[in-house]
């Protein structure tokens, strides 16, 4: 996908002025509420018209103010999944699912409905009433409904923020599976860095109506650690667990991690706060922490009275946050060897 955008729009006192080119298949638009993310999405989808500029997707011009081109939303073939699923309340789940499919030209239909329903786990929901679905189920139905139109690009506007805090990330494995299986480019819009790190490779950072930075999601996550009050969050993706006494062990690269939480699904994602990792110069004789990982220091970044240490262990990377005094005492520098101690309970499950 090649998306080339230059748009300007004035709404009241708010000015949107965005210029960017995207080629990543999973990109994100990241910014605080009111930064213009949703307006940009509306302009891309054709649900609003820019005052000036152009939007080009691959070789098709969707909008060009100087040439008076403005493709209607139904001609753009850009799918949108909104914050709230907006399933049509007067239709059954099945009718909702097929609303776009039946309006898609036969030659464009590249996704087989039954297969998609299985991937998204909506095959069991087809005969249910729309009003009886949970938030996550509604969002999966909405995603399936959009995917069946085989769009050239999917925009997801804060799709997780309408869901229950506790279970909102349960939809992520479905998203991963679906975007892995069907190669449809995605632009994910959110104000949550955690969601961005799970869903995107590249980020457009939006502030007050303009794109201020465009960079890899992971690099962005690493640059924000000194501005936020929260520490850096390591995202650890693990497979099935095995019982280890009354705890659970997982393979992670060449290492084995011990956690308090079981992993019954084939994919499990845990977060590990960088501040929860304690570094030792040598292997400690005995410790209450269940995980002791031999690590190599890749990089040390200082910021004020905190230091971020990028570690490599068993083919995986890990970031620990300590204070500069510890860096000096332990003689931590690029290439040195340390042991990272992590408690089994320090990992908290995302999904």
């Amino acid at each position, binding site marked *: 996908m090649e998306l080339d955008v230059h748009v300007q729009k004035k709404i009241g006192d708010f000015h949107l002025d965005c210029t960017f080119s995207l080629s990543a298949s999973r990109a994100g638009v990241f910014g605080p509420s009111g930064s213009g993310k949703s307006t940009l999405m509306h302009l891309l*989808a*054709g*649900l609003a018209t820019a005052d000036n500029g152009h939007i080009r997707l691959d070789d098709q011009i969707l909008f060009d103010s100087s040439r008076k081109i403005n493709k*209607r*939303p*139904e001609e753009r*073939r*850009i*799918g*949108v999944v*909104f914050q*709230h699923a*907006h399933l*049509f*309340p*007067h239709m059954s789940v099945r009718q909702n699912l097929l*609303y*776009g499919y039946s*309006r*898609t030209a036969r030659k464009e239909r590249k996704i087989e409905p039954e297969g998609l329903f299985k991937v998204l786990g909506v095959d069991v929901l087809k005969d249910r009433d729309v009003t009886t679905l949970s938030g996550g189920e509604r969002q999966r139905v909405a995603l399936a*409904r*959009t995917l069946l*139109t085989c769009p050239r690009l999917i925009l997801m506007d804060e799709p997780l923020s309408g869901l229950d805090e506790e279970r909102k990330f349960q939809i992520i494995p479905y998203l991963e599976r679906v975007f892995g299986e069907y190669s449809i480019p995605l632009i994910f819009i959110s104000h949550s860095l955690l969601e961005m790190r799970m869903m995107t490779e590249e980020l457009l950072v939006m502030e007050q109506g303009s794109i201020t930075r465009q960079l890899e999601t992971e690099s962005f996550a690493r640059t924000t650690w000194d501005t936020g009050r929260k520490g850096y969050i390591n995202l650890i993706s693990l497979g099935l667990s095995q019982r280890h006494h009354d705890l659970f062990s997982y393979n992670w690269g060449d290492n084995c991690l011990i956690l308090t939480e079981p992993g019954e699904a084939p994919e499990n994602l845990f977060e590990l706060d960088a501040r929860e990792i304690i570094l030792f110069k040598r292997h400690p004789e005995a410790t209450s922490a269940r995980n002791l990982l031999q690590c190599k220091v890749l990089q040390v970044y200082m910021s004020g009275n905190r230091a971020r240490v990028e570690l490599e262990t068993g083919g995986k990377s890990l970031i620990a946050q300590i204070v500069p005094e510890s860096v000096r005492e332990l003689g931590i520098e690029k290439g040195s060897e340390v042991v990272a101690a992590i408690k089994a309970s320090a990992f908290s499950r995302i999904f």
Partner: protein
Amino acid sequence: MLTLSPHDLQAVALSLKVAVSATILATPAGIAIAFFLAFGKMRGKAIVEGIINLPLVLPPVVVGYLLLLSFGRNGFIGSLLNRFDIQIIFTLKAAIIASMVVGFPLLVRSIRIGMEAIDPAYFKVARTLGAGWWDSFFTIALPLCSRAIYAGMTLMFARSLGEFGATVILAGNIPGVTQTIPLAIYEYTSTPGGDSMALTLCLVSIVLSFTVLLLSEAVTKRLRKG
């Protein structure tokens, strides 16, 4: 005592004919105007709204007189229709037009409330799913406010059954041509010894209105379930 003369039956049939025609003819326009008032972004909405609602607050006789002036031989619309040899005044068409104008605000108001309750995001979703404007209008907007449309039609139908003031001026009170139930009752009450016949038609009127209400309730319930 409670027997209907052929003359009365004619009045009942005419009333039904007028109410059904007025409702059916006005509904598409009612939906269009309600849509414009609910979602339109043009200026002058308040003026359109005012004009539409005027018959609701004006005495029906005033509405009838204004219609008479417009549809009269020298009136703005009347002279135009006269060229095509179309006569409106003192015909069934006049009774239907009078009912349409008087009942229209009720129809529009009801549909508009229903449309305003629809989340506009549904249209956006439909458009991004490949539906054109008209497609999304017919598959999203209309079904989502079907109850409101139906309620508006019921109100309009009931109002048309009872329409008197505008009808008597524009269509006159001609038995068998424009004499609907209320006009027939009026004639009976001003005729010596017509009381019992007036009462019979009153009862017919009550039964008709009640049936409309019951039917409307039943349909609304079904729509809610569906």
